[in-house]
């Protein structure tokens, strides 16, 4: 498709290149030429919903009005957010059966552990994943009354974070939540929707962060368990490697990283050590490594 004529929004190859460079600098997300069609369509939507009728007018306003939320609108348009409670639940099984016991052992045991056990869900999308973690720990982890646990959820998309904070979900999203848990931790709020109760909501701290932004990711430290599922698959080689390094920096030596079922860290970076659990592969930041 090299030298393709302007498409849809009237983006020339030069326009596309300028946009890609700008977006990469601002967000760390790089769109290869193969994503051209995908990006054009999203920009078309943004231009249509803006007061501007051309790419150049819209792009100029985007750069000048960064603080006004145009860039965030675009980020929100360009991310995939599709999930439900207890998705890829076998990894939560692995967390309970093997990972958390190992974390406690490596940190000196329940009686000697200093500081909280920290769990990160990144990207957390609309909150189903971090709240699922909280539910399974509360209901099924026998150490929950003896260990201080912090659960954090983070995402680049401000709209999904607002939904995560509100924590109201449709029937499809909660269909795998066992009925007793639904009764115990959720409140029906009408139209077939359920809101997660304040107790669970307050157990999860939400943050807005770009996983590729090394500077911003430095505020994430000492995580024992990280769920980073179904995002690296959408990144190019450079961005996925940078994201992997940022996750590494966010983890405690010996910490565990879960990826999505169709993702493999070995293809991205050698910095983590894969270990095969009964429930599948988990990646570990080596204990001795800096």
């Amino acid at each position: 498709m090299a030298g393709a004529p302007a498409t849809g929004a009237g983006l020339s190859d030069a326009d596309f290149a300028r946009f890609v460079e700008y977006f990469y600098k601002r967000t760390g997300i790089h769109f290869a030429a193969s994503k051209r069609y995908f990006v054009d369509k999203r920009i078309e939507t943004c231009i249509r919903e803006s007061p501007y009728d051309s790419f150049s007018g819209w792009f100029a306003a985007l750069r000048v009005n960064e603080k006004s939320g145009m860039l965030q609108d675009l980020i929100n348009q360009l991310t995939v957010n599709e999930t439900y409670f207890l998705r890829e639940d076998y990894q939560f099984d692995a967390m309970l059966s093997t990972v958390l016991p190992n974390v406690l052992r490596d940190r000196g045991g329940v009686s000697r552990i200093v500081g909280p056990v920290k769990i990160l869900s990144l990207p957390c999308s609309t909150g189903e994943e971090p709240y699922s973690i909280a539910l399974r720990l509360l209901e099924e982890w026998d150490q929950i009354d003896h260990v201080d646990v912090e659960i954090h959820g983070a995402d680049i998309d401000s709209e999904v974070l607002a939904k995560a904070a509100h924590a109201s979900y449709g029937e499809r999203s909660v269909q795998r939540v066992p009925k007793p848990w639904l009764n115990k931790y959720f409140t029906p709020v009408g139209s077939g929707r359920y809101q997660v109760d304040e107790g669970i909501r307050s157990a999860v701290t939400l943050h807005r962060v770009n996983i590729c932004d090394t500077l911003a990711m430095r505020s994430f430290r000492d995580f024992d368990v990280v769920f980073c599922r179904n995002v690296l698959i959408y990144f190019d080689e450079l961005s996925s490697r940078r994201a992997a390094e940022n996750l590494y920096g966010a983890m405690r030596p010996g910490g565990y990283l879960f990826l999505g079922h169709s993702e493999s860290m070995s293809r991205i970076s050698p910095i983590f050590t894969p270990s095969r659990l009964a429930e599948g592969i988990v990646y570990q930041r080596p204990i001795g490594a800096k």
Partner: protein
Amino acid sequence: MTDTEAPPRVLVVDDAATVRLYHSSLLTEAGFQVDESANGLEAVEVATAVPYDLFLVDVNMPKMNGYTCVEALRSDTVGTDAPVVMISTEDRPGDADRAYAAGANLYLVKPVGGERLIRIASMLTAGRGAPA
């Protein structure tokens, strides 16, 4: 691609615009001719008029879900024998069986990586036109 052989035509059916565009962009770049539908009903309507070589169909969609859509594609309404791949976030035992019972040829759990999607699409459309 030779001049005489048109690229395979694919219909991507998903209510999530971002997912639809992700799959479309991958397939377009690989040389497939791609159309999109936002739900099952729309897909069935389009498929009565266009002889697609491959369908990628999401499961959970408004108006008409993926299973009903695939049943309609296989019924006399459309009557296509083109391969149908159902792609869903659902991964319970039985989800794939339901897809196959509806008439799908393959059931995949999201997300599906780019290389894998192209490999599968190429394999299923072999002999039905050539990607550019």
